[in-house]
C-alpha cells in the first residue's frame, strides 16, 4: 500500500524531470533535472528490491557522468540566449523522428505481455550476493570481456586527450 504511493511519486518525479530536461531554457537546469530523473529511477530500483543496482546507478550516473556534464556546462558557460536558433526544417525532422520513436515504443509495449515474476527466488535476484554469483558463474566470460572493453575505452580516451603527437 505504502510502496504504491512511493511508486506513483517516483514515476511522476521521473516523468516531470525528464520533460523538464527538454523544456528548460538553461543547459545547467537541464543537467540538474536529468540528475533528478536518475535519482527517481534509482528509487524505482529500490522498490524492485535491487538495492545494488540502485546504488551503482547513483554512483555511476549521478556521481560520475552527470558531474562531468555539469563541469563541462559550467566551464563553457552555455546560456540560452547564446545558442543560435535552429532552422525550421531541423525542428520538423526532429518532430517526425520523435513521433516514429513514439510509435515504435507504443507498438512494442502493446504486443508485450506484462507478467509478474512467479518464481519467488527471482525477487531476490537484485541482492548483491545473487547478482555476483550470476555474474561470476554463469556470465563470467562476457563480464570479463566487457571489462576489457571498458579498459580499451579508457585508454582510448586518454590517448585522444593527449595534445602532443605520439
Amino acid at each position: 500500500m505504502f510502496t504504491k504511493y512511493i511508486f506513483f511519486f517516483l514515476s511522476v518525479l521521473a516523468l516531470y524531470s525528464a520533460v523538464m530536461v527538454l523544456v528548460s531554457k538553461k543547459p545547467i537546469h537541464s543537467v540538474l533535472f536529468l540528475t533528478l530523473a536518475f535519482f527517481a529511477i534509482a528509487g524505482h530500483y529500490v522498490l524492485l528490491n535491487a538495492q545494488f543496482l540502485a546504488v551503482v546507478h547513483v554512483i555511476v550516473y549521478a556521481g560520475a557522468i552527470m558531474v562531468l556534464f555539469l563541469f563541462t556546462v559550467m566551464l563553457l558557460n552555455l546560456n540560452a540566449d547564446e545558442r543560435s536558433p535552429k532552422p525550421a526544417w531541423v525542428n520538423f525532422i526532429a518532430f517526425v523522428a520523435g513521433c516514429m520513436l513514439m510509435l515504435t515504443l507504443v507498438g512494442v509495449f502493446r504486443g508485450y505481455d506484462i507478467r509478474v515474476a512467479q518464481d519467488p527466488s527471482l525477487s531476490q535476484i537484485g541482492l548483491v550476493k545473487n547478482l555476483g554469483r550470476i555474474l561470476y558463474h554463469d556470465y563470467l566470460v562476457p563480464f570479463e570481456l566487457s571489462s576489457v572493453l571498458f579498459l580499451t575505452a579508457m585508454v582510448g580516451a586518454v590517448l585522444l586527450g593527449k595534445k602532443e603527437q605520439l
Partner: protein
Amino acid sequence: MPVLLYKTALASLILIMSLLVAMYSTLIERKVAGWFQDRHGPNRAGPWGLLQPMADGIKLFFKEEFMPDTADKFLYILGPSLTMLIACLTSAVIPWGPDLVIGGKTYALQVADINIGILYIFAIVSIGVYGIMIGGWASNNKYSLLGAVRASSQMISYELAMSLSIITIVMMTGSLSMRDIVDQQQGFNWNIFYQPLGFLIFLICAFAETNRSPFDLPECETELVGGYHTEYSSMKLGFYLFAEYINMFISGAVMATLFLGGYHFPGLDKLGLSPNIFAFVSFMVFFAKITFFGFIFMWIRWTLPRFRYDQLMKLGWKSLIPLAILNVVITGIVILVNH
C-alpha cells in the same frame, strides 16, 4: 509500527547528535588552534567559552541576507541546502553500537542495515560535489566558479583512491554491510592492523573529501577570496561551514567503523555488563574513537601548510591511486594464499 517509530526516533536522535557535535566542533577547533598557537581561544561567552557556538549561530542568523543580483536565485539557495542534506545522509548506515534490549525485544542501534552499506557511502560521497558546484556556479562570480571547480575536481580525484582503499576491507570481510564489517573486528582484531596502507590512503582522502587543510584549496583566501562561498552570507554561509564539520564527524565515524573496530574494544565483552549498559559503554567507546579522529583533523589543520594545486593532483593521481591498486593486488594475493 513500533519498529518504524523506533527507527524515526533513532534517525532524529542521530541527526540531533551530528548537529550538536558539529556545533561544538567549531568551538573545539578554535580551542585547539588557541592551544597550538599558545593562546586562550574563545573564552568570553559563558564559562570556558561554552556558549560561543550559540553566539556564532545567533550571529549568522541575524546577519544581512545578501543575494547577488545576477545569481540564479533557486540554485543559489539549493547549493547550501543540498550540501547540508548530503552531509546528514551518510549517518544512516553507520552502526552506532550493539543491540539494545527493551522489554525483551532487541533494537539495533543502526538506522538501516542494508546489505550494501559501503556502496551507499560511496554513493553519498560521489554526490557530495553537487552542493558545492551548484552554489559556486549560481553565485555568478569568477572566484566562486573557480573555487567550485577546484573543490569538485579535488573531490572526484580523491574519491577513486578512497573507494579503492575500502575495496580491500570488503575483500577481507566478504561483505558490503557495515554491521558485518564491524562484527568481524571483535576485540582487538581491528582492520588497521591488517590494512595499514589502506587506512593511510583513506585518511588522506578523507581530508581531501571534506576540503580540510592541507587540502583546503577551494577556499584558498590568498587567491580565491573565499572560494565557492565567496558570495554567501548569513545562514547560507553557515550551512556550508557547518556541513564541513558534520562531514568531519561522519568521516571520523566511517573511519572508526571500517578500520578501528567500530564500537568494539578489547576486554569489553568480558566485563559481564547487562545488554543496555554494554550498548551504552560500547557507544561511548565508538564516540571516543570518533573524537580522536576529530582531533587529528584539527591537529593537521593547525600544523601543516596547504598544498599547491598541482601537488594535490599529483599526490592523488600519481601516488595514492597506484598505491591503492597495489594494496588491492597484495591483499588479493594474501587472501588467495591463505585460502
